[in-house]
């Protein structure tokens, strides 16, 4: 549902959006398309968001790609954990579409 929402919300922008349904597939996809930014849930079956971030940072060509976590938690500890895993940003659910677009635009300023 969130995947579909994000895809739909970014459709009106000029960005190319790729979707993967879990961490493992996402990592493969990242390797393939080399995106400018990754938005990921934390809780995913198999490889979760934190595992994905760790895997990206451990992979030479992918380490520089920023990753933003979308979490439902507003608990400080979990937000801190996001940043410990090298997150470039954090988006708390429920978020508005404009918030999402603004956050995406942040990575394309220059």
């Amino acid at each position: 549902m969130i995947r579909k929402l994000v895809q739909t919300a970014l459709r009106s922008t000029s960005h190319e959006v790729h979707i993967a349904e879990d961490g493992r597939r996402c990592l493969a996809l990242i390797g393939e398309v080399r995106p400018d930014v990754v938005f990921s849930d934390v809780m995913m079956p198999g490889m979760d968001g934190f595992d994905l971030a760790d895997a990206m940072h451990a992979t030479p060509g992918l380490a520089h790609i920023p990753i933003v976590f979308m979490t439902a938690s507003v608990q400080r500890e979990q937000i801190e954990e996001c940043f410990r895993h090298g997150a470039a940003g954090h988006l708390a659910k429920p978020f508005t579409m404009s918030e999402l677009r603004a956050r995406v635009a942040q990575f394309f300023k220059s």
Partner: protein
Amino acid sequence: MRKLPRSLRFYVAASTLYAAVVFFAVQFIYTFQLTQSGLLVAQRDSGDVLSSIQTVSFIVWLGISLIAAAVMHRLATALAGARSAEGEARIAEEQKEQELGSIFGLSAAIAGPLDLDQIGAYFVAAIRGALPADTSLALIVYDDVLEAFRTVAADGPRTAALREKNYSAADLPAVVRTRVIDHRQSLLLADDDAHADMWKKVVAELPALATAKSFAALPLVSRERLVGALLLIGEGSGDLIADKVQLPMIMGQYVAGSIHSALSVKEAEARAEREALVNRIAQRARASLDPEEILRGTVEELAKVLDVSRALVCTGATEDDLSVTYEWDSTGVAPVGLGAKHVPIARLAARLGRTVVVTDVRKDRRFTDPRAPQDLIEEDLIAAAATPIRVGGQLAGALSFSQVDRSREWTADDVRLIEAVAQELRVAITGAEAFGRQRAAVVELERLNRAKSDFVSIVSHEFRTPLTGIQGFSEMMASEDLTPDEMREYAGDINKDAHRLNRMITEMLDLDKMESGRMQLNRERLDLNAIVSDAVDRVRPNAPHHPVALRLDPLVGEMNGDRDKLTQVMANLLSNAVKYSPNGGEIVVSTRAEGGAAHVAVRDHGMGIPEAALETIFERYGRVESHATRHIQGTGLGLPIVRQIVHLHGGTVWAESNVGKGSVFHVTLPRAAAGTAVAEAAS
């Protein structure tokens, strides 16, 4: 002259001298006066007559003097004889006086001091003279707490074997035990032909008697109380016959009263001292609410006062349950360890319901007997004392002190002190139970609180995800140009999320209702196999990676139950089986008729559940949280709901698991008696 007595010689010499002096004096006066008167003219004529007169008178004087000497001598001898008879009488009198004096002295002596050793010394000294010099004697005083006789004084050639010895009832010869201790009669025994067998037996039981020829044991009784006994050991077989032990017996009864008083005073003093110490300990104990601290304050203090190596507090309702809950060890003593069971002395004290003392475990028949339990926890143990702790007439524990460095004669004071402190410990132990309950309640509350906050975070996560969808899609519908088809699609998505939210809220409320007993079951006749197979059909499309095998037992048949609730049970178990085996794997669902119950099992090949969590997963918010389950979405309410529903149906639910290999969830539901069971559970 030589044969004459010295006094006669003296009188003869004296009377001869006297006669001579008188003779010459008379001669002189006579001659002088005759001359003066002129009568001495015809000297020649009158000379013969005169000299003959003189000679005769001299002999007469001499005779008189000799007779006087003899009379004087007789008189002197008689006088001297009279004088010596008087001396003898005086010596006899003195001896009597001495004996009387010793009795009076003894009475005076023992009236003063109340020290047992002193009384013993006076007593032994007093009767010493009445017995043959080579007789050995020992005064032993009975200590009713130690249940042993303590030697207070000893004298005679066998002193070394008698002094500083304690005799437990078992240490004394059987005949002494029955005759002297039980019946309070004197025992006189000699190694003669008539008693040879008995003598042999007594000597075997009392090694101090070796090579002796006679033995006496005299009970000392005061005011109905056996305070002790006098042991006499004679080297001749006739040394200790009834006549000869009469004085010791009389004096013994006399001394018994003093010993009794001394014991009473000693007991009173010891009691006062003990009470002071116990008060001090009690004060310290009551200054704290923490049982741990109370035990430290009391047991440790007592252990130090008693100078023991180790102190143990065991708690338990029966002697077999006793386990160490507090331990104090002096420096260098290896600890037994908390939770240790089978502390032998404590067990014995608990079984007998009284204080038990062991002077030397290596020599104590209760522990050296090969049939005795060998599981002595304290392997280094030499001496020990233990007392049971009872609360409200029920065994609550035991207090045990041990000595690992030496054997130890526990005194009556030690024992009373231990018992007094054990009394104090009742407070600590009851307090500890209350404290423990309270602490457990606090821990439980903390756990619930943590679980609740975990739940809030889980629920908020679960709620926020559908909310994000609702918020996002509605936002797009409001702000963007969309085709009618897209509008319809997004409205459908919003609807789905709203339903999901609703389902979650319903689950929470349901569980609340069930836990508070407000849930009613809509009972009807139903086919459990049909419900199981419907649930499996519904889960299959959502679990493409999990082949689901169904094994139904047709004998399960119909039962009474709530169709929707049992469907919910199956749905929850199946969705868990899918969720917690992320890598796929077969899921096997089976039913089986087992007597009056229907048994449903759901087996998966997933990650499994750690053993510690097999129970807690059925508790509210009791989900296993780990790295592996972090991504698995759930409210943590699925299994608690399952358990509540099954219980309402009068059934049971449990899980078996093998971490890494999979889990099996078992549900049993009563078939025939379901109606009544449900009614009971629902009420």
